[in-house]
């Protein structure tokens, strides 16, 4: 029987891993420089972390990988983490709550079932969470951090779409809906039903006007938001606070020269969002997103700690970065050849390969199957003098060398720059 890969799971080939590490490297580098610290949470969590209102939408919950593990006699189900923010909030409550501010980042997978098995069910995310601080400045920092990473990767055309969960919630409240109806519509919006709001029949003239205006927000800028605030806040005071927050954020983004689109109907995401929702798109495809979730930590039993965060979707970014930005600098690779039946030469071969690696070169011992293609140099190791023959495949020249330090010196003279892949 042929071996089979588990349905909906993907392998990452050497080529793909180069892209993966490049993205991860760019992301880690930025986060560390912005003062964020890396964490990792376990793959398994208890299911109940994700079940209460204000965590995952029921549609997402219906697609988690949950099961009874070896400890499951109490009926307590575990889950392959379907999301990274909730586990990080759990970690924060668990062991970091005493420190006021936590700036954390992660590179991690998340598992969500997808019916066809055509798309991957294991998704890699690079994310950052900012816990312990409220306000527009924190949200804008996260947007700018995400944008820095994208532009480092050469993804300059990503579109930033903004929405506001607090504004949607306030609007649903003004529409005179029951708590159950409000939750259902909010979930539908988050699950990607962009028409969910426009189907609502508002009770009253003011709410109807406000709703129409909100739906028309698409593509408009802060000026429109300010006009709207003026127009609505007198009759619908509940909208005032979220509108102010929204305006503060877009004002800051404008000051920072960051272009954006406002689109209330596009707000896909998580039930835990309470404020700004920001999403990055390349064409139709979402490549990352985040938002503010001030109620999540208290809901999970922690203190009243505000927080926001974002994640970039590694799997999707991998399709967007260009091969030249992922290919490594031209290799100064050296193939070290010895003869198996000449133990002294083998010993010397391992020893010089190790010195070459310390010197910054990629040195591979010939295992008997490699050709010289792809190698700049071959180094033949003999038992008798001259012990080394170094061949430069670029120039076609060969050099007889007696000692390993001479080999290094020669490589330096002939090769110039060293390989950077090590």
């Amino acid at each position, binding site marked *: 029987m042929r071996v089979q890969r588990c349905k909906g799971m993907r392998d990452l080939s050497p080529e793909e891993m180069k892209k993966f590490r490049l993205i991860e490297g760019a992301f880690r580098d930025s986060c560390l420089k912005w003062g964020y610290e890396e964490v990792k949470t376990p793959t398994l969590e208890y299911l109940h972390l994700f*079940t209460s209102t204000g965590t995952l939408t*029921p549609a997402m919950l219906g697609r988690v990988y949950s099961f009874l593990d070896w400890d499951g006699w109490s*009926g307590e189900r575990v889950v392959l983490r379907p999301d990274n923010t909730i586990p990080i909030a759990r970690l924060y409550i668990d062991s970091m709550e005493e420190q006021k501010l936590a700036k954390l980042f992660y590179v991690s997978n998340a598992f969500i079932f997808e*019916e*066809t098995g055509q798309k991957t069910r294991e998704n890699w995310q690079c994310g950052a969470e900012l816990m312990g601080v409220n306000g527009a400045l924190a949200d804008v920092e996260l947007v700018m951090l995400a944008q820095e990473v994208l532009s480092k990767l050469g993804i300059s055309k990503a579109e930033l779409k903004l929405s506001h969960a607090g504004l949607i919630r306030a609007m649903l409240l003004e529409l005179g809906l029951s708590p159950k109806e409000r939750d259902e519509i909010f979930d539908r919006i988050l699950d990607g039903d962009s028409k969910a709001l426009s189907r609502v029949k508002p009770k009253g003239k003011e709410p109807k006007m406000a709703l129409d205006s909100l739906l028309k927000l698409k593509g408009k800028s802060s000026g429109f938001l300010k006009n709207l605030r003026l127009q609505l806040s007198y009759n619908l005071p509940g909208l005032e606070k979220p509108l102010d927050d929204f305006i503060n954020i877009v004002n800051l983004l404008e000051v920072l020269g960051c272009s954006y689109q406002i689109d209330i109907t596009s707000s896909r995401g998580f039930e835990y969002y309470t404020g700004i929702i920001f999403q990055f798109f390349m064409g139709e495809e979402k490549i990352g997103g985040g938002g503010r979730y001030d109620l999540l930590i208290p809901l999970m039993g922690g203190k009243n700690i505000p927080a926001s965060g974002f994640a970039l979707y590694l799997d999707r970014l991998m399709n967007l970065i260009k091969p030249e930005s992922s290919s490594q600098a031209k290799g100064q690779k050296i193939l070290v050849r010895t003869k198996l039946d000449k133990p002294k030469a083998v010993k010397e071969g391992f020893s010089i390969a190790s010195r070459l690696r310390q010197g910054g070169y990629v040195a591979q011992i010939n295992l008997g199957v490699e050709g010289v293609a792809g190698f700049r140099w071959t180094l033949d190791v003999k038992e008798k003098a001259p012990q080394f023959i170094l061949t430069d495949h670029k120039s076609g020249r060969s050099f007889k060398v007696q000692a390993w330090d001479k080999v290094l010196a020669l490589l330096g003279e002939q090769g110039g720059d060293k390989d950077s892949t090590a």
Partner: protein
Amino acid sequence: MEIKIALPKGRLLGKTAALLDEAGWGLRGYYKDTRLYRLTSRRFSGLFLKVFQEKDVPIQVAVGNYDFGICGLDWVEELLVKYSSSALVKVKNLGYGAGVLYMVASRSAGVSTIEELKAKSGIIRIASEYPNLAESFASRYRLRQFSIFPLWGATEVYPPESADLALVPAGRGENFNYALAPLTEVLSFSAHLIANKSSWESKDVGDILATLYDSLDTYKEPANADKALMTEMTGGYDYGEVTGDTVWLALPDGHQQLPTAELLKKAGIEIDDYPSAIGNRRPTAKLAGVKIKVIRPQDMPLQVANGNFDLAITGRDWLMDHLYQFPSSPVRELLDLKMGRVKIVAVVSRDLPLGDINDLRRLAAERSVPLRVASEYVNIADKYARDNHLGMYRVIPTWGASEAFLPEDADLLIENTQTGRTIVKHNLKILATLFQSTACLIGSSLPSPNKAKRVNFIIETLRQTVEAI
């Protein structure tokens, strides 16, 4: 072209038999308490039919062992709610065997809506034969912390002491036993014709289905052909007082009732109304501070692990199945009751040239499809296949009458046997004996200290009785 159809045993058998009779299929041996599993039709020569436990039918159709099946929509939804990509098509509502799945609580618990229940703190325990539908209910209603207790049966006796909620089937308007109050309807169901997706898309069965559809117009559901969903229990029930030191004892239903009652009698523990002629699952004993429920032996280890019962009389087979699944469970065998002796065996078809498990391993390695291991003991079967390196295998859970699965619907069976006669009768043979099982008294390794005196009294009394036999 052969068409394979899975038919239900049990609750829907009488009404399904009447419909197929009306359709003129000419089936021999499809009647109540039939001992035949494989049927043919006098009218359609290409038809092969097999009789299954109703809840096995959707699984058999979904995996492609059968092209069509007839079963209640409740079991179809129980599969689909968890495995939505199952290759299953709902072809036709046959209308008969209607019922409703209700989420119920005990009237004595004082909750009448889900919202009231959610307002209570702590873990909400839901007991059901439909664990997937129960879980879906819990997430749909956003219950924060909940535990699902999957059951083999006797669900109605669990609330309020052993579960907060129970998901139970009942006919519309049927009375609820044990003063249960429905909080909400979860699903209304009736018998359905279902099809395997690829069979439905590729096989022409127009003439067979036509006879079925035609007869639906004239079909009258025979009254009292099958038993009601919830057997009525006459009279009210006095729950009595339950305190923190009340000891809960679980006694088995089914064929272990008589020997169990006899043993208890010998031990001087007289139980009133056990076995019960009226389906009473709460018999009483003249033991101060001890309360009794009669439940399925299969369900006992999990219930004891969770502290819903302190002591239970079940089989070692079910204890092992539980412990193989949950090695950290606190359930322990306290006493071997030395009755109800059976062997747990690995069984294959006599038509296969297999002498021992090594031959089976070789066969599994040569095949291009996974080995199918059928068993009521899912975890014992899984461990056996794992320990014996059966390579790529799939465990098919069954709900009884497992011997009928071989040879066409499974390759290996893990089953219990007393004499081995049933196995021989079905042209099967025993490949290996896994272990001996007898009835045993089980309890928790973490007993509640304030119950210790009463618990120890029962253990000691039974120990002396067993030793005297």
